[in-house]
């Protein structure tokens, strides 16, 4: 008798511990009237959309807007317009760069494709980056100060706390030359 209630309590507690992992999408977004920006007394609060209503149906992430924006675009969850005037040129470039001056961290893979799906060449060249590999003098300290990759990452694109999304290439898995990669990586 003494054992069985204890065993049941044990299972109950274990269930409670495991339950969150089984409970699916746990993302939460602040409603506009509690976000510290919008005036909850203002006339717009009933007209504007709450983030949760739009973002909860997009592929999940654990940080930023809690949305995998690259996946949302690739998988057709969203179809954002690429131009307003029909004459505007839209270019996408499929070229990965591998950066090697990463100290004890894994190398950095910069995918032009994921970026030029969203951005124009002129958003980065020549203002933020030179159009030549290793010519801009990128360092992590300056990224953290909001330069180079840090212009967008940490402001609008996924934040800089996600080291491994940029530092994604382990030295023992990469034996080629740094810079532009001619072949698209396996599996792509």
């Amino acid at each position, binding site marked *: 008798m003494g054992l069985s209630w204890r065993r049941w309590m044990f299972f*109950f*507690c274990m269930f409670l511990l495991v339950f969150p992992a089984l409970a699916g999408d746990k993302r939460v977004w602040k409603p506009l009237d509690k976000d510290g920006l919008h005036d909850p007394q203002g006339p717009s609060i009933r007209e504007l959309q709450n983030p949760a209503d739009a973002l909860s149906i997009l592929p999940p992430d654990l940080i930023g807007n809690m949305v995998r924006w690259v996946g949302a675009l690739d998988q057709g969850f969203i179809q954002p*317009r690429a131009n307003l005037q029909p004459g505007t040129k839209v270019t996408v470039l499929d070229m990965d760069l591998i950066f090697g001056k990463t100290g004890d961290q894994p190398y950095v893979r910069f995918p032009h494709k994921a970026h030029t799906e969203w*951005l124009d060449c002129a958003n980065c060249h020549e203002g933020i980056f030179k159009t030549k590999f290793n010519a801009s003098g990128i360092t992590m300290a300056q990224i953290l100060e909001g330069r180079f990759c840090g212009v967008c990452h*940490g402001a609008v694109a996924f934040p800089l*706390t996600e080291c491994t999304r940029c530092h994604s290439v382990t030295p023992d898995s990469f034996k080629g030359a740094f810079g532009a990669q001619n072949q698209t990586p396996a599996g792509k």
Partner: protein
Amino acid sequence: MRKIRRLLENKTGWWFLSVLAVGWVAGLFHAQPAGAEYADVVLNRLSEANGVRPVIYPHWFHRIRFRCKVCHSELGFKMKAGGNDINMLELMDGKFCGSCHNNNIAWGLENCHRCHSGLKGLETGIRGGHKAGGPGVW
């Protein structure tokens, strides 16, 4: 160690632990992010000084509908919060927000309160609930 053992040896101890666990799980479900949605921009260079609420611009809402290049390349918004000389005359001229908020691509400028929706006293800048306060603050 012995105290924990003793806790596990009587019924009240177990109840105590299960109440803790229930509280923990409930906490998970009620957890709220720290503040404003990631990448929301406050524009208050001129608004409050001219008697209207600060403007709240939501990146998340617009990037579902437009790629970055539409605003930051075609329409010429510089990528710096507070770095563009935006005022109502420019908007009525069809520049900046007025390129779209013209009753053609999106609802028009007569809906003052939808843009001017912020609390008094907010400072111009980019916001975000996930450690990102924009460049320099990540």
